[in-house]
């Protein structure tokens, strides 16, 4: 969660953070599915950590021209090499098929990207009065949004919103299945 809250003060920073997390997570997850249990558990953490670190360093080299953005991300770039998604997919739940592992990793990173993009765009627009570095006239400037505590509060509300939507969808599915079961029972 700190990855999506603390460094994502602008849309560009949010997207770059997502890219670093994807670079750390996807190769490690795919490699874990190919290697399987051939690596002893004792060596799996340093091995996959090294793989993700290498990928993060490679990406950092590619974007080395964005010095200001990298400075904004700060310590979260090296921390991205050991993020929770990578640890879960590579160490805790390695997938047997490479396609499944790739699918899981890509969807997780895509979800992170959506949340990071939304949060960073909102905080940049309302907090700094710009979007993608372009100054814009926001209806109201709320400088408190650029502070970390606002990010945690926004994440909490987003989470509540998604849980509410989830419960509505599940409720409808349950009612539909009960209706179907009742109709089937009546037919019998």
């Amino acid at each position, binding site marked *: 969660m700190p990855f999506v809250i603390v460094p994502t003060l602008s849309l560009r920073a949010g997207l770059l953070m997502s890219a670093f997390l994807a670079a750390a997570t996807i190769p490690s997850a795919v490699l874990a599915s190919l290697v399987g249990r051939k690596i002893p558990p004792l060596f799996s953490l340093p091995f996959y950590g090294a793989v993700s670190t290498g990928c993060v360093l490679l990406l950092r080299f590619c974007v080395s021209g964005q010095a200001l953005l990298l400075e904004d991300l700060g310590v979260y770039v090296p921390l991205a090499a050991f993020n929770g998604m990578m640890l879960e997919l590579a160490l805790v739940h390695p997938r047997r098929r490479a396609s499944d592992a790739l699918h899981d990793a890509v969807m997780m990173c895509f979800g992170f990207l959506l949340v990071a993009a939304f949060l960073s765009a909102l905080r940049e627009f309302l907090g700094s009065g710009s979007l993608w570095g372009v100054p814009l006239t926001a209806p*109201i*400037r709320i*400088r*408190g*949004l650029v502070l970390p505590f606002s990010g945690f*509060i926004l994440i909490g509300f987003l989470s509540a919103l998604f849980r509410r939507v989830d419960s509505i969808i599940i409720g409808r599915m349950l009612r539909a299945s009960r209706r179907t079961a009742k109709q089937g029972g009546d037919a019998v």
Partner: protein
Amino acid sequence: MKLRTQNPPHIRSRESNLTMMTDIVIATLPLYAMAVYYYGTRALLLGGFGVIVSSLADGACQLLAGKIPNIRDLSGAVTGLLIPLLLPASAGYSMILLAALFGIAVAKQPFGGMGQNIFNPAAAGTAFAMICWPKSAFAYPIPFERLPAMVDDTVRLVSSPAYSLSLGGTPNIDLLDMLLGNVPGPMGGTNILVLLTCLIFLIVRKTVGLAMPAAFLGGASLMALLTPRVDAPALTAVAYELMSGLLVIGAVFLINDPVTSPKRTLPKIFYGFGTGALSVAFRHIGRYEESFLFALLVMNATVWIIDVWGEHLAHAMRRKNREFKTNPPVSEPAEQDVGAAQK
């Protein structure tokens, strides 16, 4: 003894949420009257706007939570009345709006609503407004300069005595003026005499107790005495420290919140003393000229542990008292008595 069966509740009190909140609403009316006297009808507009926004936000959040909206307990209205009193009379309506929304939708309703919130909603909302708009939150109009309904750049705004203290200087204001409220400052925070009258009213009505406000002001005074910020006699420095900023209005309205304060008397004293001392300490090291709200929110977060300690202490004292009553200490007989008994 004749026993009579009756359905519960068996213990009734005249106090309820509605009576307590009504007392607080009544206590804020003199402050609004003084604000209208100093700044014009804009003070009333801000108060009314705050009440409407807070009440609507309260009702909307309860609806979203699947509950029946209950704004008749006036808790939302109290929040809406207190927020403008903690801010300048020149505060924008958007500032009041966001402060009220933050206080209700972030600090109150997500924790369960009335009776279950951890943080004081008015303090949380006002603190958020101060963080978002520090320049507007700490620039005050001059008393007796009538403010238009919509404040523009033509309104003259000045700093308060708290700002002078934060720079290490002595405010160029008479202490009597500070007592009467004839100084730039928060809309409801400058009328010290009226605030003390409101406190007496609330104590007489038994809506609040004396322990917490007294401990709070005592803690703040002690801290101000030990670490004065101005080059003045000790009592003068303490008086300047107490009468500037939000300390007195906090002692009357915010620290006495029955939901966010401890339950027993000794924890209340500890809580009040700690909040007062922390408020003055934050004034030394904090970024803003007024840090009482942040100190209050920090202490709100510790109330649960203060309550636990308070319960342990109360049980220990009760146990000791019971042991003392059942086994009173026996005094050792004198040597002469022993000798006489043996003979």
